[in-house]
């Protein structure tokens, strides 16, 4: 797919302007899922800016992001990396069609430690 088209799509979907990034790395410094990720939050920002989106779309990192928004909260420039990651994730999911988590499958996956928020976000992104 065309790099520029993909980049513009990501920016449109996320509303993020990666040019605001001053490359301080506070997003990755604050990320609780850092070690699980192949591409880290700061890399998402710079790769999307360059249009290197296909490797991101293929990466497991998309599903390691907890959407905890710590990076959004702490970014000194207001870049909002989590929204960018979400945009890439959405663009993959949309290509797959409607294979989302079904309500009937939920009870089997529940355990006592699972926060309610995780179930809500599972509906949004549990589909690979």
């Amino acid at each position, binding site marked *: 797919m065309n790099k520029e088209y993909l980049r513009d799509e990501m920016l449109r979907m996320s509303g993020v302007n990666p040019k605001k990034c001053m490359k*301080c*790395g*506070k997003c*990755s*410094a*604050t990320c609780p899922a850092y070690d699980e990720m192949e591409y880290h939050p700061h890399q998402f920002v710079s790769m999307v800016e360059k249009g290197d989106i296909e490797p991101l779309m293929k990466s497991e990192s998309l599903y390691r992001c907890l959407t905890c928004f*710590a990076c959004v909260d702490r970014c*000194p*420039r207001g870049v909002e990396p989590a929204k960018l990651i979400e945009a890439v994730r959405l663009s993959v999911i949309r290509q797959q069609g409607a294979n989302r988590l079904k309500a009937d499958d939920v009870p089997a996956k529940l355990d006592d430690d699972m926060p309610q928020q995780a179930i809500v976000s599972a509906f949004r992104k549990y589909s690979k």
Partner: protein
Amino acid sequence: MQRIGVFVCWCGSNIAGTVDVQAVSEALKNEPGVVYSTNYQYMCSQAGQDMIKNAVKEHNLTGIVVCSCSPRMHEATFRKTAAAAGLNPYMVEIANIREQCSWVHKEMPIGTEKAIILGKAAIAKVNLNTPLIPGESPVTKRALVIGGGIAGIQTALDIADAGFPVDIVEKQPTIGGKMAQLDKTFPTLDCAACILTPKMVDVAQNDKIRIFSYSEVAEVGGFVGNFDVKIKRRARYVKEDVCTGCGACVEKCPMKKVPNEFNLGMDNRTAIYIPFAQAVPKVATIDPNHCNMLKNGKCGLCAKVCAAGAIDYKQQDEIIEEKYGAIVVATGFNPISMDKFDEYAYNQSKDVITSLEFERLTNAAGPTAGKLLRPSDHKHPHTIVFVQCVGSRCAACAEKGKEYCSKICCMYTAKHAMLTRDKYPDTEVYVFYIDVRTPGKNFDEFYRRAVEEYGVHYIKGMVGKVVPEGDKLKVQASDLLDNKQLHIDADLVVLAAAIEPDKSARPLATMLTASMDTNDFFTEAHPKLRPVESPTAGVFLSGTCQGPKDIPETVSQAGAAASKVIGLLAKDKLTGNPCVANSDELMCNGCSSCQRVCPYGAISYIDKEFRMPDRTTKIRRVASVNPAVCQGCGACTVACPSGAMDLKGFANEQIMAEVDAICK
């Protein structure tokens, strides 16, 4: 009827690139009153000015219109040219066809059309111009310096050195400011006290300088050369001229648990206190919020032990009034609050400190007598993490941080890191940075020494969070060059907090009618060419009140501000601006509307005798403008319901003629 000459400037290609200057001078030739019209490459050059002078003689011109850059740039130049040719300088009008025309338009036909319209307006105005003669006002040969930090001290010393008396107003009990709290100074590492305190003593001993410590500016009136200032001297409950600074009262005071602001609350002081050993003036001050005698009338120990009899519990705040010719603002800075930076656990752990607190911790006169000990358990820290840009370069949230670079942090952090490694080789020191900014003489060399000779670990990346756990601080950070997330167990975390202008600056700016930017830094009259002057005449800027600065820069700016003040005070008389308001007494109905809107207090009301048509006389109340105080803002001309107020040089009639010419 005027005989007007029109001079269209090309400004090289600045104007001529977008405006057909030939067409403009041709089009303006036939305007009413115009007898001569020409264009030239650089009207402000000697040749251009000669062209104007010759045309005045040759064509008997009575008025001049120059179509050129903004009047802020060259109005004064062309007025001088007119005066040299024997014309009244106020018969010159500038049509701004650069900033308001060629620079904002891209296409020549549009630019040319607008230039012609602006030229026509200026011509319409000159047709109604009358010669104006400026008044003169005397200069009070005394300067006021607001703020007694290194900026204020240096400015005061330099002004006094030229022979003019100076008063310093300082809100703390002592002068010295932030520099007095510092340990060593970069890049030469001389101790701050060793180079500052001799200057403080110079100030105290200089018979041209008076220090009003523990005082604030309460009110400012008047204008350049003639400011009337009210200074509030807060009651310190100690007679300043009697106290010898022996310190007996401080020893005996039973209230020993007052947080010591000089050490940023890291130790305690007494209710009666002298901020530090080298304080100037070395006089005790009673803190009324903590003194038992002032709060409950019980104690009075300090008065008993004071051999000089300096204690006065009945002392009241006092307002003194002084006249000044010039005012220098040197109100300085403060580190921003760390309250909004929860991720760094500043409020959760005593061992997360700001860099200014670190200065006090390493200062021999500080709470630990110069030994680097953790505030929580007084143990020697082995792993120290410095975090740069805490609140600086932060565009995300205005309540949290500042968008600008605080400029001084890179260097002082390099200094802290280097000195720590030098004194305590058993420590591991990490500095997390976004960029290391070290422009300045011997600055980058200094930073490289910290890395290469002292083994400080500089890591490109920010700290994401600090979590206190046991007696450790768990630091989670980015190492961007290695693409790793680091986890460090630190003993001490030092935050390089952004700096912001002192909170007193904003109300002071209002009093001075001096302008500020959105960050509350004072604005300079021109960012490059008039960096130490405020746009308000007679108000000058020194130090960090104008923008973040280190000590060398502050001292040079302080000297520059002093030289501007000396230049002003050396004059015996100042020429005023003749474009001031003027009231037509016959039309004035005495309603006071103008007096209420005047921001400068230039309008008063007088009772004046008028002869009536029936040969009787009648006393009426009418407005009277003090031309020396009026700044020509025109607010009164708008407020006046009867049309009696008018502004010389900008009369209603002239403005309407301009509008008519534009709309024709």
